[in-house]
């Protein structure tokens, strides 16, 4: 079976060409002016651009709030779904994942329209509601997966040894389910920062998120500044994945 390892070569070549090289190009473009000379001007422009900075702050704030809300709402749902006592059928979990298969833009537009019809003004509140609505299944599913596979006897042992059910939950079940939560955070936080269409629709263009300004710059041929903004996002992704020690476990929970 020795040369079987060579079978990975085509994919490695593919990855270098379509994943590594494009990311290197983001960096190259970020540090070049439109004539192709090295410059720090694009990054400097971001740090002196009040609009871009406030958009960035708003994006991080919305993403943090969205992630927190998704955990608060999603964890109990995942726990109930994984608990045989409350839920015996696999169909219920499918009902929670199913909206993900419907085009996200269409769902978002319908949500916005529903708010307008109910007389709710589009703004921060509707943006958060719509974001939670779009990303909640991505939080529920990985947590559910970890909880469903978890050996229940650990929590039972804790109760047998004198812990209250509440204590057993916080000290045993929650720590053991952390890979699912991390994986959920990965799937909710960065995508929220980077969405562009969703925030436009849900706030009637009132609130811009970071993804929107990247998109606007790329589309108006300001590639270098757009690349610089994308580069800033890459750095944040790098930092968030560093914090995530159980990465392999977390990704295992996705599938």
């Amino acid at each position, binding site marked *: 079976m020795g040369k079987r390892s060579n*079978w990975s070569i085509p*994919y490695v070549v593919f990855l270098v060409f*379509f994943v590594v090289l494009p990311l290197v190009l983001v960096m190259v473009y970020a540090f070049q002016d439109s004539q192709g000379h090295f410059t720090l001007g694009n990054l400097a422009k971001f740090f002196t651009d009040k609009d871009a900075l406030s958009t960035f702050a708003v994006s991080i704030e919305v993403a943090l709030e969205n992630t927190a809300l998704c955990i608060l709402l999603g964890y109990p749902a995942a726990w109930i779904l994984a608990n045989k006592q*409350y839920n015996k059928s696999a169909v219920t979990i499918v009902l929670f994942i199913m909206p993900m298969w419907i*085009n996200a833009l269409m769902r978002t537009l319908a949500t916005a329209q529903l708010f307008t019809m109910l007389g709710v003004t589009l703004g921060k509140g509707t943006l958060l509601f719509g974001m939670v609505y779009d990303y909640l299944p991505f939080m529920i599913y990985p947590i559910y997966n970890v909880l469903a596979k978890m050996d229940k006897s650990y929590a039972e042992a804790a109760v047998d040894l004198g812990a209250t059910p509440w204590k057993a939950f916080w000290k045993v079940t929650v720590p053991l389910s952390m890979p699912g939560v991390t994986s959920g955070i990965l799937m909710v936080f960065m995508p929220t920062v980077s969405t562009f269409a969703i925030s436009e629709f849900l706030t009637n263009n009132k609130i811009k998120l970071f993804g929107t300004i990247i998109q606007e710059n790329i589309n108006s041929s300001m590639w270098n500044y757009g690349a610089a903004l994308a580069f800033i996002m890459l750095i944040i992704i790098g930092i968030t994945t560093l914090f995530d020690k159980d990465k392999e476990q977390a990704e295992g929970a996705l599938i």
Partner: protein
Amino acid sequence: MGKFFARLYLWILLILLYAPLVFIAVFSFTESKVLGSWEGFSTHLYRNLLTGQMQGNASLLAAVENTVLIALIAAAFSTLLGTVAAIGIHNLKGRKKKVVSFLNNIPMINPDIITGVSLFLLFVFLHFSQGYVTVILAHITFCTPYVVLSVLPKLQQMNPNIYEAALDLGATPSQALWKVLVPELKPGMVSGFILAFTMSLDDFAVTFFTRGTIGLDTLSTYIYTDARKGGLTPELRPLMTLIFLVILILLVIINVRQDRLQKQNENK
């Protein structure tokens, strides 16, 4: 009592999750131009959609066709590339394995917009004109890692001696591959294909950046442009309702079957 509240909680979440979908479905049965205004019951929009007679909006059907075609091609290539890659990665050791696994993780961690912008810059840099080919290449890029992750567990579960035994018993390496290895990996390949297919269907941002300016639309980019222009094509409502129903029925059938199989196995 606990059971009651648990159920109630799930139901409230489900009602909220499904409200917009039900909203679309209800208003697919009226002719109004704008979503949300009711002008009497009518199946006119369904007839328009199914006969393709829409007020100058036949491009909607072209967009649906593109979406399905791109997803099928991208999923097929991803499954092939990802399965071969998984066999290779499974047989790698030590640092090499870690490096390749890390590279495989990058497209999954990157948000769509980064994947889209970085590939856009690649195609610009290479002076590669953007259209179907670039969109499909981009979709293969973000789909393949999911195939790799679906196939790898099957390789880990497999007894490596079966393959060796086939060789010892006189099978050629290619016979051993097709008659032993592929059947063992098939469940992983199928779930990888389905995952890749749905990821591709649902994509918006990556397609948006790599489709170029030749007027190529998938369902997502069509809806985006349509909404930016101010009004959604009314026929999108029956289309979404039909897609929703098809998926719902498929999922329920698959899961009821799985439930039954599981129960049969438990009874044995």
